[in-house]
Each structure stands twice: as structure tokens, then as C-alpha cells.
């Protein structure tokens, strides 16, 4: 005899499996679409050349400018974000007492996480207007660093909070100051977690288009100084899609494939590294 509750149970289980399948299926579909459309247009010249004259009408060239630009932008932004995030995370976990104040800082980090990337771009733009700067690599790096900050601090904050209290106390009992404890005990102990946070932020930075649109501009040349404009992969995808030529649009798909490849590589590296680095951890 099948009663009402049993039916309800079966119904919802089916619903759950269907939803999980839809969600996993959508990932397969996204990756499949990008590979299927991008792979035919991808070739060596695209990866190793900058756009030549008439590139956006289907003539030869590549997106090296965007690849290098994106790596510079996201790399610089990540370095800047590390320089700010690490002290803030250490301060929140080691120096500051748990209080209304730290709660408030964490709340404002959550809010920052939710702020749209285009607003970071617009904010970066107002700062640049204020300083009289033009669209440049530096502007893009600053805007992206602001965007990466909340992601990175939250990740670092969480991984430092996992350090057992006894470990900190034994370091203090040997006479180490909080700074020495943070640098010599906490950092090696949390290296895998910190690295994951850094790579997560890097991935978010390299994939973001809206914040660099205002601040970094776009150029066909490789970036040569901090004050000259820089291209980026997401914008390369966007601009190539905007042209009416199918050949150029195919290159947009290929550029998207390159970007996806970088993201997949980062996620793979972070998995491998976080296993490698665990040997320094005291359990």
C-alpha cells in the first residue's frame, strides 16, 4: 500500500534528482558550447600574435594583446589585493578581539562582495577623473583589486579561523609576539587555504569585464607601461562578438575558449597545490 507520505517522498526525491541533473547538465552544455564553437577557430596565430590592421574585419592577427593584458591586469590586481587582504585577515583573526567592531567589518565585507562589478568600474573611473588619469593598466589593476578584495579577505579570514587556538597559545607561551606568531606559525599552517583564496580571487578578476571596461580601456598593443591602456580577454570576446563578421565572431568564441581554459587551469592548479602544501601543516 502506497500512502500519501510515501508518494510525497518519492515525488520530491524525483524533483531533486531532476534539478541536480538540470544544473549539472547546464555546466556540460556551457562547456560543450564553448568548446564546440571555439575549437575550430582556435589556432596558433591567435595565441601568439597581436591584432594586425583589419583584424576586426577578418584579416589576420591574434589576441595575444588580450591574453597578456588580462594576465597583467589580474596578476597585478591579485598582488595588490594580497598586500591588503593578508594584513586585514590577520588583524581580524589575531589582533582584534571578537566584538561588535569585527562583526561590523565582516558585514561590510559581505556588502562589498555583493556590489556589482560595474559599480567598481564606475567608482574606479570617478577616482581616475579626480586624479586626472586616463584609462590605463594601473586603473584597471586598482579597480580589479577592489573587486577581488572581499573574496580574498573572506577566504583568508575563514582559513585563518581554522587554526587551533592551542597552536597560537603555544607560540605565545614561547614569548613570540602576535606578529611573529602570524608570520611564522599561522602563515605556513594556513598556506593551502590562503592559496585557494588567492586563486579564487584571481579567477574572478581575470573573468571580469565590467570593471575593466571603464578603467583599463582597450588597445591592440601589448601593455608596455602602467599608465598605458591594456586589453583584456573578456572585453576581446565582447568586442569581437559585436562585429557583424562571422569570421570575427568565431574568434570571439575561440577567445572565450582561451579564457575558459585559463579558469579551468587555475581551478586544477589550486586543487593540486592545496594538496602539495599540506605537508607543512601541524595537526
Amino acid at each position, binding site marked *: 500500500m502506497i500512502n500519501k507520505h510515501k508518494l510525497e*517522498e518519492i515525488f520530491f526525491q524525483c524533483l531533486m534528482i531532476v534539478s541536480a541533473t538540470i544544473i549539472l547538465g547546464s555546466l556540460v552544455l556551457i562547456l560543450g558550447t564553448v568548446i564546440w564553437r571555439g575549437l575550430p577557430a582556435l589556432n596558433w596565430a591567435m595565441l601568439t600574435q597581436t591584432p594586425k590592421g583589419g583584424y576586426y574585419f577578418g584579416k589576420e592577427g591574434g589576441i595575444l594583446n588580450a591574453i597578456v593584458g588580462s594576465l597583467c591586469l589580474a596578476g597585478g590586481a591579485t598582488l595588490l589585493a594580497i598586500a591588503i587582504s593578508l594584513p586585514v585577515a590577520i588583524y581580524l583573526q589575531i589582533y582584534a578581539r571578537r566584538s561588535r567592531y569585527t562583526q561590523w567589518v565582516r558585514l561590510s565585507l559581505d556588502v562589498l562582495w555583493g556590489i*556589482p562589478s560595474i559599480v567598481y568600474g564606475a567608482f574606479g573611473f570617478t577616482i581616475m577623473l579626480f586624479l586626472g588619469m586616463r584609462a590605463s593598466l594601473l586603473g584597471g589593476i586598482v579597480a580589479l583589486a577592489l573587486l577581488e578584495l572581499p573574496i580574498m579577505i573572506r577566504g583568508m579570514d575563514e582559513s585563518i579561523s581554522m587554526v587551533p587556538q592551542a597552536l597560537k597559545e603555544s607560540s605565545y607561551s614561547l614569548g613570540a609576539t602576535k606578529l611573529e606568531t602570524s608570520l611564522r606559525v599561522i602563515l605556513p599552517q594556513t598556506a593551502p587555504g590562503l592559496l585557494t583564496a588567492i586563486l579564487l580571487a584571481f579567477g574572478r578578476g581575470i573573468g571580469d569585464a565590467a570593471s575593466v571596461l571603464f578603467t583599463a580601456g582597450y588597445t591592440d598593443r601589448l601593455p608596455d607601461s602602467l599608465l598605458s591602456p591594456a586589453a583584456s580577454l573578456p572585453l576581446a570576446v565582447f568586442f569581437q562578438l559585436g562585429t557583424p563578421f562571422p569570421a570575427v565572431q568565431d574568434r570571439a568564441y575561440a577567445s572565450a575558449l582561451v579564457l575558459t581554459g585559463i579558469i579551468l587551469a587555475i581551478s586544477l592548479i589550486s586543487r593540486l597545490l592545496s594538496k602539495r602544501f599540506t605537508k607543512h601543516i601541524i595537526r
Partner: protein
Amino acid sequence: MFNDIKLLGQSQARKRWRPSLEFKKKRGFLDRLAQQSMALLTIAISLLAPLMAVALFLRARPILAVESWRTLLFSANWRPLQGDFGFLAFIMGTLWVTAVGMLLAIPPSLLTAIFLAEYAPQKIRDVVMPVIDLLAGIPSVVYGIWGMLTVVPLVGNVVAPAIDRWLGILPLFHSENPTGYSILAGGVVLAVMVFPIIIAVAEDVIRAVPQGLREASWALGATRWQTIRRVVLRRALPGVIAAIVLGFSRAFGETMAVLMVVGNVPQVPHSIFDAAYPLTALIANNYGEMMSIPLYDAALLGAALILLVVVLVFNLGSRFVLTKVMQRQGQNG
């Protein structure tokens, strides 16, 4: 004499075993210096959001001097060249796309989170969770391309005609737009982007519910689903709300992916098959010419300010509600 030698010996011993005063001072000084500079950085970071609001407000002020808040927010009259800046069409575009996206995203992602936390064996979780993480990392332009290549044709050729035939009498589902570049396409893309965020957080929260609560419910004869609905979800409610708020923030401010599939027609939409023009797309599409038309830059940065204020209000408001809910839960045990 002997005393002196003894003292000398002691002081040498001290020198050998104890750090000198200067060294101690230096360490203490470094520690204090680090503490103070870290505190300063932390304060600066926590003031970043208000600072952004002030900076955008200062840049948007010229337009507030010309137009009143009410005209800006509730007029659909958008002619920058004539100096008419009414954001209504764009605000409605943002609201529609976000609402459709969240409606499509919440049920399947919560069901999947429950499935992963409550039903799935460890093996499946080990495979699925990394995939979910991966989905979260995919850049928005890639979502946009997927939307253009698969969702837009699907909506234009299959979904819109079918739903228009069956439900076309209802204004919400009436289709006059054959292209497929529509609110529904934007909503689908947003939903897929938001899935991993909601799932990751909600799964965590649901798994954190103490096992004893479940066992008590099973012992009373409840089925697994009854236990989930009446016990687990009730306990996990604040966390689930937080997950939805995170997803909302992401969907609300998404620019590139939506811009590529939503059609970008400045009109107040009336059906999910109409094209729309969200605020984010407005800013991204027009940043190039904004310095050449008077007041245009102020208007666009004002649009960014609107986005920022909505996100701030929504986040703080939901936090307020959450603390209330948690307090009530605390009182009930």
C-alpha cells in the same frame, strides 16, 4: 673583587641567554607597528562601500541639480541629447530580469542543495561539489556566449511561440518579439549563474543542522521529506535566506552576460518575452560617449549609484531580518 667577577659572569650569562633590551624593544615596536597599520587598513576597507557611494554621488550631483529624484526614478523619458534622463525603463528592466532569474534559480538550486546535503552518498558529493565550484568560476562573458548561442534561439523558436499559444491571453506571457533576445533569456542565463552560489552556501548550512534533530523527527515516524521540510529547513532558514541574498546580489549586478542576451531596447517591459534594457547594460553600453554629451556622465554614474544603493539597502535589510529571525529561533530553543 670576587663579587664583581660573579656579577660580570652573571651579566655575561644574561647576555648569552636573554635577548637584549633593544632587541626586545624592536620586536615590541614591530608588533605595535604591524597592529596599527593593519588596524588602519581594516578601517579603510570597511569604509570602502560608503566611500564609493559618496564618490558616485558627487559625480552624479550635476544631474540632481537639473532633474528631481522623482523624474529620474519614475519617468520613462530617456533622450540624453534633449537632456531628458528618466531611468524608469532601465530600472524596470533590471527588476524584471533579476526577478525572473531568481524565480528560476531558487527552486532547483535549493532542491539540489537538499539533495546533496541529505540524500546523496559521499561519492556523488565528491564528484558534484567540485563541478559546482567550477560552475561558479566561469566568467560572465562565457555565460553570455552560451546564452546567445543556445538560450536565445531556444526561447525565440520554441518556448515563446509555444507559451504564447497556450498562455498568450495573460499579458505576462504575451509574445510579440520573435528574436528571443528577451527577459526570459536573460533570466535563464542569470539563473544558471546564480545556481552555484546558492547551492554552495545552502548545502553548507543544511549540513550544519545537528543530526540529533533529524533523528528525533525520524523517531516520531516522520518521513525523510517531512523531516527536511518541518525540521531541517526551519532550522537552516537564516542560512538559506543568506544564500538567496548572495545570489540576488550577483544576479542584480550582472552586466555582461545579461547585456548579451536581453535585447537592450529602452522600454518598460510588459511580458517576459519583451526585450529589456537593465541599468548595468545601460552603463556598459554607453560609457564610450558619456563624456561627449552634457550631463550624460552624471546620469550614468547616477545609474551606478542607484545600483549601489539598492545592493546596500538589500544586504543591510536582509541582515536585519536575519538577526531578528535568529533571535526568535534562539528564544524558541
